[in-house]
């Protein structure tokens, strides 16, 4: 087998894994599916067959067809967590940005802030199917359909929309609705941590065994990055820089918080582990 074939097989298997994880297929099932796919592709290439003969002309359609019978029905609790966890996480991120941008423990909330949430939350629900299709990194894809280019364009459009709506509302509806103070942020942090931890614990696609040493190193690196960006934010009080440094610091802090919650959430014993433990 040539190295090109091996690389193509690796690429296809990786793309399918991403698609299946994003489709919510249980991890034990995904492992079996990857094993079968990898074996089939290698055997087909050894027998001189083109890869298209195994997966067809559309990799995404192939991955979707295989995912369909393996999908787990979402219960009420899971559906609630699937919406609640990213929703509260997003709210926490926006609140952090406001605290940092205004360098204050309390800030005023107006219609522009409500509009920002109203735009971002439905867009967040569209993110999963978008990510699923962007996972298909097949080499035959034309350059303008490259996932990173698509994601960047979509992100720029979202930012432009937010700025336009925000500016319009600040001019036409400048009234303050209420004042958000730091105890509310603390409550939000606790609620988001509990919801996200429950969501991670119930996540069927979560790997069965954690690499604790890697996770600890990642946690330290993210903690370091958060401190560094906070230092940058403190060192640059100029209004021209404050928005950029506030976004940067809030992004690092949220990523650090997510990794911390993941690290602190115990792994649920799955079917395979229960069988192995006898």
């Amino acid at each position, binding site marked *: 087998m040539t190295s090109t074939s091996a690389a193509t097989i690796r690429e296809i298997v990786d793309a399918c894994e991403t698609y299946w994880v994003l489709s919510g297929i249980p991890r034990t099932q995904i492992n079996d599916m990857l094993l079968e*796919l990898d074996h089939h592709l290698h055997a087909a290439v050894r027998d001189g067959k083109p890869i298209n003969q*195994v997966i067809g002309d559309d990799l995404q359609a192939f991955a979707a067809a295989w995912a369909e019978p393996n999908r787990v029905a979402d219960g009420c609790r899971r559906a609630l967590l699937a919406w609640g966890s990213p929703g509260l996480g997003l709210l926490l991120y926006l609140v952090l940005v406001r605290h940092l941008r205004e360098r204050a423990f309390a800030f005023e909330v107006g219609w522009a802030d409500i509009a920002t949430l109203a735009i971002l939350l439905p867009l967040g629900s569209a993110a999963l199917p978008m990510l699923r299709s962007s996972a298909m990194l097949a080499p035959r894809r034309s350059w303008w359909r490259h996932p990173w280019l698509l994601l960047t364009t979509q992100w720029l459009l979202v930012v432009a929309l937010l700025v336009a709506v925000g500016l319009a509302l600040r001019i036409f509806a400048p009234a303050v609705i209420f004042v958000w103070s730091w105890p509310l942020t603390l409550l939000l942090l606790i609620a988001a941590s509990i919801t996200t931890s429950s969501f991670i614990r119930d996540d069927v696609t979560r790997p069965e065994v954690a690499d604790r040493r890697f996770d600890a190193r990642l946690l330290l690196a993210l903690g370091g990055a958060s401190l560094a960006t906070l230092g940058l934010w403190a060192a640059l009080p100029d209004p021209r820089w404050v928005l950029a440094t506030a976004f940067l610091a809030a992004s690092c802090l949220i990523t650090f918080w997510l990794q911390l919650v993941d690290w602190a959430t115990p792994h649920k014993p799955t079917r395979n582990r229960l069988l192995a433990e006898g």
Partner: protein
Amino acid sequence: MEKHRSQLLKGVLDMCLLALLGKEPCYGYEMVQKLAASGLNLVSEGSIYPVLSRLQQQGLIEGYLVPSAEGPSRKYYRLLPAGEQQLALWAGEWADFAQAVSLLLKGSSDDIDLRGHDPRNR
């Protein structure tokens, strides 16, 4: 011709896979090879996996991992008692269906012959 044959196979793929597993446990690639050896080629070989997953969900077959000397473990499938019953049922239905289609095709080929003998066609 080949594509049409593959489309026909798609409609009865679950039954063919059950029939193969009725003979002996197999893994995915082995099933594709056995189908090809019987003259049943699939346009997309990977299309057997969603069908196998569905049969497994229905409790007709089960999958199990077998360590392989050549590399990582292989996933084999075997027929379950419910699968044997289903196969017997489908085999009966298929016999009736195939007979009906054969009769229809035979009828149309007779019609073609008759048209050939029709004086108006001369």
